[in-house]
């Protein structure tokens, strides 16, 4: 089956053959993968998908890879958890948590996009991959490059703390610390990607890389029993994930795998870095870049590449957006941990907090079904919680001391009702 048509400009529609390029040479619009849906429809059914591996590769016919899967065989198909306790806390009937905090191998949804990008890099014959990242993306690129025996270069601002890069360094990439402001580092990386024949995952491989996020959306639909929920609340950084979840749902409908798409997709961002949600709230397609100032570091992109498309997605689906303050983000993390036993990073706190606010606004109704997107693991960045948590009881090593402490705790519990 020939499933890939090639690439297509999202702005002017000009077609390109499948190659490691990402910008339309005519209008400078971003390129996106284009498929032969009629051909895919002939071979993909619910049964063929269900018979596939328990990973994101069960949807490989809908991903832009053509040869063997080179890397990341176990990525994806993460749990979709029915969150009964959280639902009760939020006053809703049906809440689900799509839990990519346990995505193999580096505990974030970035494993999905990187697995596709590096498989495609191998297909194109590249021997070196690269990214500019301070967190989850760097972890994932370095880990997958190690697995695929590819050379990897990770670019970071020179002032980033050493502790932040240990989970990347362990995979033995070449770490390049760039002196200069954020803007200077950013521009240099764009120029490096333009000059060197490397697979820069989120630059010249962006059309392929970003398609990996669709698997997150496919899984939500399949795991819900081949239906779309009433609402999906999605954390937004670069803005790609929300567009790809929406695209995934529409593709399933195009292929006849579901009858209709009923979801409203909502954007969740931190108040200290929320340019996409600001667009949605102001109903304007003009994105005003911001300087991030938030504890939600994994969402801290002030000038998101897909901001405009994220706004369009929320609007097209009938969705909305909400900002979360730093305090609300921490509360969101603690609420998810306390009710469902899931420790998410700050981005997850943003999503939980935004969901709560969408409920308060009446955007999400009590009898609606909601999927909350959890995209990263809290164990990587516990810093925001250091001063918020403490152990409750300290005793001497005597049974009588424990008896007294337990009695105190119980009476305290009774007093607090």
């Amino acid at each position: 089956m020939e499933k890939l048509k090639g690439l297509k400009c999202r702005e002017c529609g000009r077609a390109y053959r499948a190659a490691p390029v990402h910008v339309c040479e005519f209008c400078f619009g971003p390129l996106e993968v284009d498929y032969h849906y009629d051909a895919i429809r002939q071979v993909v059914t619910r049964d063929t998908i269900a018979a596939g591996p328990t990973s994101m590769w069960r949807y490989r016919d809908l991903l832009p890879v053509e040869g063997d899967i080179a890397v990341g065989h176990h990525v994806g198909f993460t749990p979709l958890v029915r969150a009964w306790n959280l639902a009760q806390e939020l006053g809703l009937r049906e809440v689900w948590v799509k839990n990519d905090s346990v995505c193999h191998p580096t505990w974030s949804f970035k494993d999905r996009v990187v697995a596709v990008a590096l498989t495609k890099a191998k297909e194109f014959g590249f021997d070196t991959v690269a990214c500019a990242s301070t967190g989850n993306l760097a972890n994932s690129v370095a880990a997958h490059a190690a697995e695929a025996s590819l050379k990897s270069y990770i670019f970071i601002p020179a002032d980033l703390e050493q502790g932040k890069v240990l989970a990347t360094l362990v995979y033995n990439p070449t770490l390049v610390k760039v002196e200069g402001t954020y803007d200077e580092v950013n521009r240099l990386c764009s120029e490096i990607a333009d000059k060197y024949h490397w697979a820069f995952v989120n630059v010249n491989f962006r059309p392929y890389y970003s398609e990996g996020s669709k698997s997150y959306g496919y899984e939500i639909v399949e795991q819900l029993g081949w239906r779309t929920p009433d609402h999906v609340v999605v954390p937004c950084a670069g803005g790609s994930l929300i567009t790809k979840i929406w695209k995934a749902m529409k593709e399933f409908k195009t292929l006849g795998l579901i009858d209709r798409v009923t979801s409203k997709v909502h954007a969740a961002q931190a108040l200290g870095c929320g340019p996409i949600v600001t667009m949605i709230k102001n109903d304007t397609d003009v994105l005003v870049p911001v300087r991030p100032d938030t504890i939600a570091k994994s969402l801290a992109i002030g000038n998101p590449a897909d901001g405009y498309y994220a706004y369009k997605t929320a609007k097209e689906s009938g969705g909305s957006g909400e900002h979360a303050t730093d305090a609300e983000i921490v509360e969101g993390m603690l609420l998810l941990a306390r009710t469902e036993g899931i420790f998410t990073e700050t981005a997850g706190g943003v999503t939980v907090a935004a969901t709560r606010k969408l409920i308060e606004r009446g955007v999400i109704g009590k009898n609606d079904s909601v999927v909350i997107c959890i995209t990263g693991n809290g164990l990587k960045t516990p810093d925001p919680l250091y001063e918020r948590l403490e152990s409750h009881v300290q005793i001497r090593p005597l049974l009588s001391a424990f008896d007294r402490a337990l009695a105190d705790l119980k009476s305290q519990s009774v007093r607090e009702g």
Partner: protein
Amino acid sequence: MARMRVRLTFPPERIQEPIIYHLVKDFDIVTNIRRADVKADHGWVALEMEGDEASLERGIAWLKGKGVTVDPIEHDVIIP
């Protein structure tokens, strides 16, 4: 000659100024507008610039001094 693909975002107070004209005339940069959206209160231009590296750097510094935001065409490349 070096080539750059950038996105310039103009603050409202610069909309009426011939910024790109000065970029060409004062810094000897060859420009080519590929896409743009300029309204009364905001504007952006997707621009190709060609020139020697030093001229491009000086031109970008001048743009920033004017309050014009200069981003790679990819926007933020550094990802958390």
